[in-house]
């Protein structure tokens, strides 16, 4: 499958998807670690892709989302943002309702 199709499928089939460096248990980058922390605090399951283990995704996702850096949080097929935006949303209380809603929609789908 074309890498762009693979990315599209990942983004569309996972209502909460984090592209990161490393894994949630062993993040390899401070920005990824901080984003995972904010996401875990929402208390819902989420999917992740380690871009260090998936160089094709790492090379092509920036074009797909018009976003050059990692991590990237995608919710319901839409780019929410990177570490700075996700952290800010967690602090302002916007993140949890967004994540809860996405988890609920995945459960009923």
């Amino acid at each position, binding site marked *: 499958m074309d890498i762009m199709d693979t990315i599209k499928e990942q983004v569309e089939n996972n209502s909460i998807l984090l592209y990161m460096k490393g894994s949630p248990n062993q993040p*390899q980058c401070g920005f990824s670690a901080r984003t995972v922390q904010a996401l875990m605090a929402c208390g819902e399951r989420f999917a992740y892709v380690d871009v*260090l283990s998936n160089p094709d995704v790492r090379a092509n996702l920036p074009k797909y989302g018009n976003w*050059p850096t990692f991590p990237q949080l995608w919710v319901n097929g839409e780019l929410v943002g990177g570490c700075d*935006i996700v952290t800010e949303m967690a602090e302002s209380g916007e993140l949890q309702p967004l994540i809860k809603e996405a988890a609920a929609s995945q459960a009923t789908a």
Partner: protein
Amino acid sequence: MTVEQTIESRLVEGFSPLFLQVENESHMHSVPPNSETHFKVTLVSDGFEGVRKVARHQKVYAALAAELEGPVHALALHTYTPEEWQQRQESAPDSPDCLGGSKRESQS
């Protein structure tokens, strides 16, 4: 011109900022001394009024596309309207500590 200066001049040109701070945070990461790879940008501009955060960052990325394709590895972005900046009492969050990802990347 250093990478830091280039970033500064592109952002001044593109956003007519009321406040702009470009910090080289490369020393916090596992890269050689005096590197210009990791930056933090705090940018306050009228142009962000009514623009969502994702779109604000995309505008900045577009202005710095050449740098991001080249030497710049990480760019922490804090973008505010003048009003948001005042509400935050004119301070941006700190960047996270490094976890050594670049080391693993150079091996792979």
